[in-house]
Each structure stands twice: as structure tokens, then as C-alpha cells.
């Protein structure tokens, strides 16, 4: 039997105790009291679902008590007990919001079934409320997703359109710089001023370029495609893309992969982006002669991808903030502060989790837990026809 929290109010002690005892035998153990005033004081202290309330009581009568209950606890259902042939009271009670009324003498079975009906009504109302709430939340998410999608498209377009003129400015500034180095311009007046200005232009280009790349990397991701992915292959590809930079910095990249690793269901392009972001980060954090280890392990129904470096480590006060957008400890213009933010957004989108551990002077490890199967079906059922990958895309500011 479901746990019905019942309060039984009647001033006739014998009748009350008899009913309460018999209800208890049927699995409902009610609270009890003998007056309207006591009833209200119990409601203040206890969570109650259903109140069985006698109408005819000295002091505050049942109808009056009912008014108070409905005013203060609208979710509570009240069953009234009226004297024999006093149906007028019952009707008045229903008008005041009672669930129903029963005429004394009360048949236990009858009372029991009324209590259950009242409780069932509460349950249904609760369900409806939850449903309405979740529908409202879903609608909100839908609006957010749509807003983000259009914002994303716009941002990608803008970033793209900016990159091209940026490249032209870059080449022009670079060319002028070369010209300034020519012998024929050796004696040019105020040459240093030109050189300084060109330097500033180049730094500005670098900065803008990094931001547009990150932005494109982030927003260009809405068309997620799930497929069977050989994570080992993704690691190889990413290492290949990043290897030159690592070699330039004399950083060694080592892989530790369980040969029986197998495949997972995920989005290959996004996984690649995650790996490249993490590897780039590690390379930047690791000095010459350092080492980056990539570990792939299977832990139950999950896979764990670890990127560990022997870099300088992250101070404790920054560790919690590394995933925040625009948080960067690199000097202004060097980092966008979007890399790890983007990485975390992607990992979460893929149903995974990312965490970081670090020891100053020893290095940093990023752990990415990914599900072997991205639970796309369940989400689809829960959220009806709503774009699943869109929902989870809530990491955006």
C-alpha cells in the first residue's frame, strides 16, 4: 500500500480511536486530534496528504477548519464527516473545496476507498504539475537552443568573413615589414615608428585570428554525427596533426593504449577537436624535453582518455576555473580562454565528463570519461522529437 499521510480529526474520542485502529490494520497509520485548532497546529509541523475532518466540533468547526486548510495548504485533500441526514453541511463543504463528504455512521471500506481516491487525486495533480514544469523547461530549452543555433550561425559567418580580410592584413603587414628591412630603406625617416606600428598590427591579427578559430571550432559543431569510432585512430590522427608543434618544442608524445580497446559510439570530429585542444594545451604547458602521455582505458561501460603532461602544473586557485569561458593565465593576446571551455562543452555534449588534476611542478592530467554508447535513444524518448544534441548544448554563456 502506498504511504498515505493521513490526519484524522474528530472530537468523539471513542469513535476516532476505533476508526484509527481499524485504519492502522489496513496499513494507514494516521495522525489524530480532537479539534480544528489542533488540526491546524499539526499541519504546521507535519506533511499531510489527506485530512478526514468531522464537521460538528466545539470551538472551530469543520467547515471553518476546512477554509483555513484550503487557504494555507491548497494541495491537501479534505474528506468531511457529517452527522446523519446533515447533507447540507457536506454540500457546503464541497463548495469550500473538500474532496467529498461521508455521512456518519461511516462504513470503514467506504472511508478507505475515499481516502485512496483523494490520495490518487493528489498524485495525479502532482504528476500534472511535474509534467507542466518539464514542458515549460523543455520549451525554455528549445528557445535557448534556437537562439544559440542562430547565434552560432551568425558567429560562424562573422568569424569566417573576418578571417579572410584578416589574412590580407596579415600578408600586407608582413610584406611591409620585409620592405622595411631592405637596404634602400635603411635610412628611411622614422623607420622605427613604422616597425613598431607593424608589430602592433601583427599582434592584433594574431589575437583576432585565435578568437575566430576558437569561435568557428565551437559553433561549427551543431551537425553532430554519431558513428562507431576507433578512438585509437582518432588519437593517432590528432597526434599526427600536432606532432610538428610538439617536435618544435622538443616535447615527446607517448601513447599507452590497451590493444583490445575496440570502438565506441560517438562523434569523430568532435572527439578529434577535444584531443587537439587538450594536446595543444599540454604542449603549451610543457617545456622543452617534457613528455605528454595519452592513455586509453576501458572502465566498465565507459572509456577513459587521459592526457598527462610533465608541465608546470596549475595552481590550486586556478584549477576550478580552467573550464570557465575566457579564463586564461596566458599573457593577454596569447590565449583566448576558450580552449578548455569548448572542450568541456563538447565532452558534455557527447554524454561524457571531463576533470583535471594537477600538481605544481609535476604536471597536469586531464581525464575524459566517455560512454561506450551515447544514450541518444533514451533522451529522444524523454524529449519527444526535440533535438537531443541541441538540448545538451547549454554550456554557452
Amino acid at each position, binding site marked *: 500500500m502506498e504511504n498515505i499521510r493521513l490526519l484524522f480529526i474528530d472530537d468523539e474520542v471513542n469513535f476516532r480511536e476505533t476508526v484509527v485502529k481499524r485504519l492502522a490494520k489496513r496499513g494507514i497509520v494516521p495522525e489524530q486530534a480532537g479539534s480544528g485548532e489542533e488540526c491546524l497546529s499539526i499541519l504546521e509541523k507535519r506533511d499531510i496528504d489527506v485530512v478526514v475532518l468531522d464537521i460538528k466540533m466545539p470551538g472551530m468547526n469543520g467547515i471553518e477548519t476546512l477554509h483555513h486548510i484550503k487557504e494555507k495548504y491548497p494541495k491537501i485533500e479534505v474528506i468531511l464527516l457529517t452527522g446523519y441526514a446533515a447533507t447540507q453541511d457536506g454540500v457546503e463543504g464541497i463548495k469550500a473545496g473538500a474532496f467529498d463528504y461521508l455521512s456518519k455512521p461511516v462504513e470503514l471500506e467506504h472511508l478507505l476507498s475515499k481516502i485512496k481516491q483523494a490520495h490518487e487525486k493528489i498524485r495525479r495533480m502532482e504528476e500534472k504539475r511535474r509534467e507542466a514544469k518539464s514542458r515549460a523547461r523543455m520549451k525554455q530549452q528549445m528557445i535557448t537552443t534556437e537562439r544559440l543555433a542562430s547565434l552560432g550561425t551568425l558567429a560562424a559567418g562573422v*568569424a*569566417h568573413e573576418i*578571417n*579572410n580580410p*584578416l*589574412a*590580407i*592584413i*596579415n*600578408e*600586407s603587414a*608582413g*610584406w611591409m615589414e*620585409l*620592405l622595411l628591412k631592405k637596404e634602400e630603406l635603411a635610412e628611411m625617416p622614422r623607420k622605427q615608428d613604422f616597425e613598431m606600428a607593424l608589430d602592433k598590427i601583427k599582434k592584433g*591579427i*594574431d589575437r583576432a*585570428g585565435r578568437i*575566430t*578559430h*576558437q*569561435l*568557428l*571550432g*565551437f559553433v*561549427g*559543431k551543431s551537425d553532430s554525427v554519431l558513428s562507431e569510432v576507433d578512438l585509437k585512430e582518432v588519437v593517432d*590522427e590528432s597526434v*599526427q*596533426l600536432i606532432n*610538428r608543434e610538439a617536435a618544435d618544442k622538443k616535447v615527446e608524445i607517448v601513447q599507452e593504449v590497451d590493444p583490445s580497446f575496440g570502438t565506441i559510439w560517438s562523434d569523430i*570530429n568532435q572527439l*578529434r*577537436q577535444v584531443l*587537439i585542444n587538450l594536446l595543444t594545451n599540454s604542449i603549451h604547458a610543457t617545456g622543452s624535453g617534457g613528455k605528454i602521455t595519452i592513455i586509453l582505458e576501458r572502465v566498465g561501460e565507459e572509456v577513459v582518455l587521459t592526457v598527462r603532461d610533465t608541465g608546470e602544473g596549475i595552481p590550486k586557485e586556478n584549477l576550478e576555473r580552467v573550464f570557465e569561458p575566457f579564463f586564461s593565465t596566458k599573457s593577454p593576446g596569447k590565449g583566448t580562454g576558450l580552449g578548455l571551455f569548448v572542450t568541456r562543452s563538447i565532452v558534455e555534449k557527447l554524454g561524457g565528463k571531463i576533470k583535471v588534476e594537477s600538481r605544481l611542478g609535476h604536471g597536469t592530467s586531464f581525464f575524459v570519461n566517455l560512454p561506450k554508447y551515447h544514450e541518444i535513444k533514451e533522451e529522444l524518448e524523454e524529449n519527444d522529437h526535440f533535438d537531443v544534441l541541441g538540448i545538451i548544448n547549454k554550456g554557452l554563456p
Partner: protein
Amino acid sequence: MIKIPTRILVVDDEKDFVEMLSLRLKETGEKVTSVYSGKECLETLDGKKDVDDIDVVILDIKMPGMDGIETLREIKKRFPLVEVIILTGHGATESAVEGMKLGAFDYLLKPADFKDLSAKLEAARKRRDEHKERIRMAEARFLLRKVGEI
């Protein structure tokens, strides 16, 4: 030491970009040809436009008509010795990965750092020269054997 210029073909539909990059590369002593589409790129390599042998192609990915990936596929099919460095405006790495799989020497994100580009050009040129050298050696061995048989 006299620098032997690398013969570079720059392919990008953004004319101002091509013009400035070419000027800059020429200023550093390279020999540069500029074209503005994948089609022109292939025509140039085909020798239709009477241009010197090309060592390295700098190829933009996003172009109207025949895009960079398609052009790269054709280049590698018809002129496997020509090295290709792709330029991508995408922050995403998909096109870079695809390009690398299709045999591009390396990739750069736009706007590219000139120092990076220069280093990559030099490395590409080196690989091209080594390739050519190996072919010359193989041909020489082949000829020697022929002579031996006679």
C-alpha cells in the same frame, strides 16, 4: 650562399590575399605563381600556361567551384610529386584531417603565421627534392643494370 628559390603556386579565390602573399614570398626570394581557382591550379600544373615546374602548392580549402579538397585530390592523382600545403579558414579540423589523409604535406589556419609558412614550405621543398633524388637514383640503377646486360 645563394638560395635556390622554391617554385610556389598560390591558389586562393581571395585576390588581395594571393597578391599580398605572393609579394611577400617573392620578397623572400621565392618564385611565385598566383591563380584564383582550383581549375586554374590544375591547368597551371598541366603546363598549359607555360610555367616552370612547381615545387609546392599553397592551396586554400574554401573556394567557389572546385574546392581545395577536390583540387588536392586531383593534384595528388596527376602530379604526386608536387607537395601541397593547405590553408583553411575553418577553426574546425575536419578539412585539415581530410587534406592530410589525401596526402597534403601539412596545413595552416588562416591567417597563417609567415614564419610557420616559411618553415613548412622549406620542409615540403626538402621532401620534394629527396623524392626527386630517389627517383633519379632508381633511374640510374636501372640504366646501369641495362648497361650491364649489354
